């Protein structure tokens, strides 16, 4: 008998008319690794909630059909009873923890299960050691990093030794390295303990290849169910947004085989066109080689010697937190009007501090920051409302009104436009972006992707600002939404706007930026043309460059890679 058996389930949340799941049939055998993909709002989360009885017991609503998990009917068993069979990790780690220390958090589920003290102690120690959390045993949970917090959740769930581990976009709030770390951990748990894993995830490049099955959902239905290779081929013909980037560019270039990993893609290129030693053509962006190094190297650049048209500038800027280390050290950075700059770096490298100093929310300890030619300060920001658009890392912090329309009207008001004319412009803007359907909804009720799009829409309202500053705009976005945000920014750039984006997402940086800078340990370690900086890096490099970098330098955008692959396909084996 299958470990999970879902028969003809249709489900709708209370207060909604259209069901979130429609006629879902699914069987999962012991030891499988099932990856669930599909656009935002397709029913992935509802499917996950079905597995441990949160639907319908916690959420209520209307449900028909049968769900059996580990031999138990979920309609007859409460989520608390199913907790020993099904462990669930949700999207936002921060909203799942109840204790103040890691050790106690791991013990929480075990205590709920009423296990004897020696068993609880043993399992807590096992999880602390197994997931590398021993040194954090007594750490205060709100002070853990995102990755550590999500690992703590995973440990507390795995401590119950569930037969099935369900993960609902577990990396959506994490930076790439923490995400990689967590997914490696999940893979290890699956391989070493034989735990059945059912996971929805949008960082497909990191998990597509090791799933044993891939499901594709749309509008509450499972449209495809099969092995990854077949799923890739099916998605290529249906919606290539739900393919890993490397697979997508091969699919778009019309190749018969769609590789799932960079390694396989390299082999395929070697078969078609073996690379000659030492040969490296100039790619669409020219030869490789960034401006790496200290201040003197950077100061030679034309954009540093000129003050004309500068939107912002950081000059010999330092920042030290009162109870912490130096967050910024001798930072020199500027941005000229009509260009776009991406700032990349690890967590804690100083990206957000630099951004806050440039906006005047923090005062540099030494050196100066200039925004539109003046030293920024919180009191001056209202005067800049019409010139500056800001998209925060967490879109929820942007929303303070009860509907999307009111939110946009407030932006118009802050930019000096009110009344019927403003209302008309807002409605037209929402219409042009395909967001009219969301106008009367509370922004907090929207999905992560929809929220991000609303923030960008609000920022890019007419009259357009001169500068758009974005802090991690793609965190939690699937590729389809990311593509929409990239489109909006490219339109803004083509109308002469200036963009400054702080991001971990190399693919996004490659798609929107002309220039890129990398910050490490509070200092700018390299900056230059995006194709040079990203093309010459091992880890701050998009998958396209990892594939083609040793053949032709500076290929960082998908469209360039597709063009090269199309050419190679037509030319055939050498």
């Amino acid at each position, binding site marked *: 008998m299958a470990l999970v058996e879902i028969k003809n389930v249709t489900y709708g949340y209370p207060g909604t008319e259209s069901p979130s799941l429609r006629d879902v049939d699914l069987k999962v055998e012991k030891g499988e690794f099932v990856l669930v993909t599909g656009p935002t709002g397709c029913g992935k989360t509802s499917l996950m909630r079905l597995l441990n009885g949160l639907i319908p017991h916690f959420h209520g609503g209307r449900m028909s059909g049968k769900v059996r998990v580990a031999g138990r009917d979920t309609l007859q068993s409460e989520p608390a009873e199913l*907790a020993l069979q099904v462990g669930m990790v949700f999207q936002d780690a921060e909203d799942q923890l109840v204790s*103040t220390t890691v050790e106690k958090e791991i013990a929480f589920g075990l205590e709920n299960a009423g296990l004897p003290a020696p068993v609880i*102690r043993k399992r*807590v120690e096992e999880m602390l050691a197994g997931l590398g959390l021993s040194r954090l045993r007594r750490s205060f949970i*709100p002070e853990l990093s995102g990755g550590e917090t999500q690992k703590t959740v995973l440990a507390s769930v795995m401590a119950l030794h569930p037969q099935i581990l369900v993960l609902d976009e577990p990396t959506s709030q994490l930076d790439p390295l923490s995400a990689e770390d967590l997914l490696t951990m999940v893979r290890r748990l699956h391989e070493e303990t034989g735990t059945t894993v059912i996971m929805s995830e949008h960082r497909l490049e990191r998990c597509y290849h090791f799933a044993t099955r891939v499901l594709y959902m749309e509008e509450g239905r499972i449209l495809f169910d099969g092995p990854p290779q077949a799923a890739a081929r099916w998605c290529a013909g249906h919606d290539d947004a739900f393919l890993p980037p490397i697979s997508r560019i091969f699919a778009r270039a019309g190749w018969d085989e769609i590789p799932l990993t960079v390694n396989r893609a390299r082999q395929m290129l070697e078969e078609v066109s073996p690379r000659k030693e030492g040969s490296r053509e100039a790619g669409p962006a020219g030869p490789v080689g960034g401006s790496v190094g200290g201040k003197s190297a950077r100061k030679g650049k034309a954009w540093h010697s000129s003050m004309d048209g500068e939107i912002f500038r950081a000059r010999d800027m330092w920042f030290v937190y009162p109870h912490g280390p130096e967050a910024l050290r001798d930072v020199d950075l500027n941005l000229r009007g009509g260009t776009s700059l991406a700032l990349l770096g690890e967590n804690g490298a100083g990206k957000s501090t630099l951004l806050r100093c440039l906006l005047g929310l923090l005062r540099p300890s030494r050196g100066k920051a200039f925004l539109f030619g003046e030293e920024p300060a919180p009191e001056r920001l209202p005067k*800049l409302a019409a010139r500056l658009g800001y998209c925060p890392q967490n879109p929820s*912090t942007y929303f303070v009104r009860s509907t999307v329309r009111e939110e946009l009207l407030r932006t118009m008001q802050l930019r000096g436009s009110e009344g019927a004319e403003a209302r008309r412009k807002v409605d037209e803007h929402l219409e042009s972006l395909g967001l009219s359907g969301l106008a009367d909804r509370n922004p907090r009720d929207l999905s992560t992707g929809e929220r991000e799009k609303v923030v960008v829409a609000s920022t890019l309202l007419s009259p357009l600002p001169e500068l758009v500053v974005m802090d991690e705009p793609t965190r939690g976005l699937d590729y389809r939404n990311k593509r929409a945000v990239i489109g909006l920014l490219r339109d803004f750039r083509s109308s002469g706007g200036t963009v400054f984006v702080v991001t971990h997402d190399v693919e996004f940086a490659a798609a929107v930026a002309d220039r890129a800078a990398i910050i490490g340990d509070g200092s700018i370690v390299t900056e230059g043309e995006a194709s040079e900086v990203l093309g010459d890096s091992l880890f701050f490099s998009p998958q396209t460059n990892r594939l083609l970098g040793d053949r032709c330098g500076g290929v960082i955008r998908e469209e360039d890679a597709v063009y090269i692959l199309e050419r190679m396909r037509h030319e055939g084996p050498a």
Partner: protein
Amino acid sequence: MREDDVLPVYRYKDTLIHGLHPLAALIAFVSMAAAALVLENPLCTAITGAGVLALIFQADSWGECRILLRAAFLVALMVAVINPLVNGQGEHILVYGPHLPVWGETNITLEALLYGLAGGARLFTVIAVFALASVTLSPDDLLDMLSRLSFRSSLSAALAVRLYPSMVLEAREMRDVQLARGEPLKGGGRWSRVRAHMPLWLSLFQGSLDRAASIAESMSARGFGAGRRGRLNGRHVRPRDLTVILFSSMLLCALVTAALKGKAGFPFFPALGNPLRELDLFSFALLAAAFPIMLFLCGSWKRWHWWRSRM
């Protein structure tokens, strides 16, 4: 709250106070707060206040307590300033004020001034004890200990401690985002600032409700409410805990006795009494011994490994 303030919440540190058994810590904190509240003698107040501040230093918790101590100081100062203005008792008049209808004389006396200062100092000490307790006493350990009495109330308290920093950080982030968006949150009159902040507070409240629902869902998924709960082995009671429990309990008994016998007060009016003559010797001796012993235990814990391993 200033940007550089460290939030006054529990963080584990390798100090004796953080390592105390929750029962020992609880009794110690209750006895300190009781000493500040019950004993009116300025000498006792001075010893208690200085002792609590020294313990905060020994617990390496000055950073975490600073925000509460600052607030406590302001409140204490207010008490010290307002009391002599409204309390005209006392023989030694420092400033003659006008005679107000209904109110009467508005003289400022030395006794009322000292009474206000002593009251302010006692209030400051009580808040300092609360600050020390909130940053050194683990809510999880407290939950463990009190779970048999009232698990749900203890869990609510632990959740409040856990979520408080997240809410403060979210509030700061939201304020920064709204400032960057151009909301006039700074500058202007007080009323316009309040009006500008109002949507932000409502949104924060709504965010807290969303978070509460998410946590409830997560707790459900991890078996909360399935039936009888187990317990991770609690902390062992060690010699240091017994020492603290012994002295704190004795101090509590002495305070109760002094209060019942009417020896806990101090004559501020009509003329100031002599602090040395008015002392309740038993409770003063215990108080004077309890803090040095606690400070000795804390200091030796850090320096002498041999002693630490036996405590």
